[in-house]
């Protein structure tokens, strides 16, 4: 080193080391916070492993391989496979039709295809049971879950299609390819990753769904877990089955990862000015309109028809105070959940907004993996952990905390996606203009990322409102939310009583769904984060 150590050099060295110390101190604080959140988010998993390990090994093996368990596994696998295949076929077809075919009111046609997201699967199911007496069994469950999760695939595919450069299609056409060939050779390879993301969501939703399957008397893994937990309070056994469920969702996530890795090259950036060429064929247009109308009838018109007629039939006996208090507690608990989720996600978000190191990336990945955790599983783990916590257990705050853990992955994913929209050059420039790291976050990162993050928080709020199994397991004694009221009436076929609660829940949930279905928002929100599954 050639530096001559004059007095000035010494003073500037001490200034240098002081500022280095300040930087690392605040970074350490943030990292510890992230460490705590990381620990909290893995508590359910850790608990389940401990619980399952405590059970004698022989018993666990017996439990896993008894005929009943294998049958449940078979049912779950059939459900997931059928829903995956059906949503794949219908979702991709419908999204392509919406994107490529000239249709009247094209830009708003997407809204009815997305609206089913606002209808919790248990509400959807009970309206169909009310509409078609004797509606139950595996086929009914496949029908319901396909319709409920179709929006995920449609939205994800649409997002992918929008990112395909129109001029590529024109080039392909000039090279003599037919529309059919263009779709399979040019378009599909580029949107595979998007489609896979959408199908992943519908598979995870199906795996973790509890409301629809139990109303339809289909015993899937979630129902078994709830039954074991209810009937015997044998939490060891429930934990073993829960681990099977987790293994199931892990496989789904891994398959999705594989597909995505193979389509990495397809991340084309589209020039925003390119003009779209639409399919004008009359036959195609008519068929598309016919399919869209049928979809609208079965997934929107019928549920709403049932809800509204039942509501009107029931006018006299509506218990208004109960309805009001259930609505208010739903809003309150969901808001607490969203707020806690935001607090838990904040430190990670701040670290991600700078130059994330390995630890930050690791924490983000682990937390994001958690979005495959079914509500039943998280509920089961938190019941056991919570019962040791004394006063806080069975309060609305603990329920809110459970929501936060359950939906943390969604929020982190949405924060990450929003932060990715902040160009890194902009942060560098802000720093060079004298903004310290906090000022950069406050003046540059936050204003740009805020809309996305608040939309993500609203989605957590919405999802928490519709959540069923965790609410059933962890709500304070005497607290009724819209979801639990609907559940308790619908489970004993008192559809008229459930109708007002369901109608209110769907109407509240429709608002944010409407927000995300706006075409400009839809693509950015969808690919990265899941929303809506009430589990």
């Amino acid at each position, binding site marked *: 080193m050639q530096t001559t150590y004059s007095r000035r050099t010494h003073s500037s060295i001490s200034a*240098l080391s002081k500022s280095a110390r300040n930087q690392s101190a605040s970074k350490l604080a943030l990292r510890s916070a992230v460490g705590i959140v990381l620990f909290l988010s893995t508590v359910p998993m850790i608990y389940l492993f401990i619980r399952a390990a405590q059970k004698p090994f022989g018993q666990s093996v017996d439990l896993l391989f008894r005929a009943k368990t294998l049958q449940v596994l078979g049912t779950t696998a059939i459900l997931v496979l059928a829903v995956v295949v059906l949503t794949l076929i219908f979702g991709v077809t419908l999204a392509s039709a919406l994107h490529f075919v000239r249709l009247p009111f094209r830009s708003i046609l997407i809204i009815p295809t997305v609206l089913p997201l606002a209808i919790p699967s248990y509400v959807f199911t009970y309206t169909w049971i009310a509409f078609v007496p004797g509606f139950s069994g595996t086929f009914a469950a496949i029908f319901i879950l396909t319709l409920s999760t179709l929006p995920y695939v449609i939205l994800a595919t649409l997002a992918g299609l929008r990112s395909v450069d129109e001029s590529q299609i024109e080039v392909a056409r000039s090279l003599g390819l037919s529309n059919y060939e263009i779709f399979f050779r040019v378009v599909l390879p580029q949107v595979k990753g998007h489609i896979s993301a959408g199908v992943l969501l519908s598979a995870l939703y199906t795996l973790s769904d509890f409301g629809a399957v139990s109303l339809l008397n289909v015993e899937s893994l979630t129902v078994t877990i709830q039954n074991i937990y209810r009937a015997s309070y044998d939490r060891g056994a429930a934990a073993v089955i829960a681990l099977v469920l987790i293994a199931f969702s892990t496989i789904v996530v891994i398959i999705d990862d594989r597909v995505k890795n193979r389509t990495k090259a397809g991340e084309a950036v589209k020039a925003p000015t390119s003009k779209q060429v639409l399919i004008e064929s009359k036959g195609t247009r008519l068929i598309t309109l016919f399919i869209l109308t049928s979809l609208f009838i079965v997934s929107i018109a019928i549920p709403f028809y049932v809800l509204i007629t039942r509501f009107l039939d029931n006018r006299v006996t509506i218990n208004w105070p109960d309805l009001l208090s259930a609505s208010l507690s739903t809003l309150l608990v969901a808001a607490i959940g969203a707020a806690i989720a935001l607090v838990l996600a904040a430190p990670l978000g701040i670290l991600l907004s700078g130059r994330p190191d390995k630890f930050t990336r690791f924490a983000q990945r682990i937390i994001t993996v958690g979005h495959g955790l079914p509500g039943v599983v998280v509920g089961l783990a938190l019941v056991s952990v919570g019962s040791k916590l004394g006063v806080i257990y069975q309060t609305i705050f603990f329920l809110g905390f459970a929501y936060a853990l359950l939906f943390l992955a969604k929020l982190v994913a949405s924060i990450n996606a929003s932060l990715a929209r902040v160009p890194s050059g902009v942060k560098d420039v802000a720093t060079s203009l004298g903004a310290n790291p906090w000022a950069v976050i406050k003046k540059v990162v936050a204003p740009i990322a805020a809309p996305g993050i608040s939309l993500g928080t609203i989605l957590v709020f919405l999802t928490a409102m519709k959540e069923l199994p965790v609410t059933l397991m962890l709500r304070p004694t005497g607290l009724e939310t819209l979801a639990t009221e609907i559940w308790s009436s619908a489970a004993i076929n008192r559809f008229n009583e459930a109708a007002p609660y369901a109608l209110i829940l769907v109407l509240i949930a429709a608002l944010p769904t409407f927000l995300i279905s706006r075409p400009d928002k839809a693509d950015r929100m969808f690919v990265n984060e899941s929303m809506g599954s009430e589990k």
Partner: protein
Amino acid sequence: MSSLEISHLSVSFGEKVILDDLSFSLKEGQIAALLGPSGCGKTTMLRSIAGLIKPNSGTIRIGKQLVSLSSLVMPSHKRKIGYVPQDGALFPHLNVAENIAFGLDKTLLTKDQISQTVKDMLLLIELQGFEKRMPSELSGGQQTRVALARALSIKPTIVLLDEPFSALDAELRGDLRSQVIELLRARNTTAILVTHDREEALVSADVVALMREGRIIQEGSPEDVYSLPISPAIAASTGEALLLEAAQSDDGSISYLFNNSLPPETSKTNGQVVIRPEEIMISRSISSNSAKGKIAKINYYGHDAMVTVKVKSQNVIVRIPGPFDFQVGEEVSLEHTGPMRFFPSN
């Protein structure tokens, strides 16, 4: 404005060495151009000066202030450096005036002072009346100018420009470049311009630094780096260069395409001679000291033309000012008039 002194700066990302014991200095008010292929470490050097990267070792001094000593670094936001990245990186959520005022300290300046500075800056970049425009409503060149104004508004110690003109089309690019350089000179700004455009480097800078693989391998005035390259490869990176096989005898005389006078049995060193296309005269008359050839190709640029002449199976490129009346296939004679640059092999 301040001087800059970098000594023995090394930066590596994991195993990969990006900057390798790099030293460089710049006097107050000088403009330097960093020229090199992509991946040679230009941007990393700039980011180290700006404090956006933590170097592994070495020192950086801006003016009299030591800002980086090994891994002890002064945080970027305390350095007062004007940074203009490739795409301008205007804050998309702020309008032009807010972008320019971003770095101005609101606790030290009054509202009037700030709006006056913004006005002065807009006058400087000739965008008066654009205060309320959003970045998305500006053209590429306007965005670059606003980014520059934003960098200059904080009265920076040094201005760092990272290929600010690369996204612009050729015509606009030349105009904007000379405007920006003029602006920087008028304010006696110390600045570093990263570029991979050799013409841009030669036109703009007082000092041209040529980078390869994390090192500065030659630096000097534009004239020096152009006419006194330290290697044939460097010659090629600052402009068109003709590389000819050559041999030097013990007495210093060189034999090559234009002068094959050495007796074959003398002991000699093999190497290359580097000639710029404008250092060769082309004519129809035959003199003793010339090489004969046939015109194989003419690339016409308007103000001049590059003529490829085939001499003994060797293509020689000659720059001639237009207008001219040579034609492809014509027999001509070539004469080397410029300096002799001989580089022994190895």
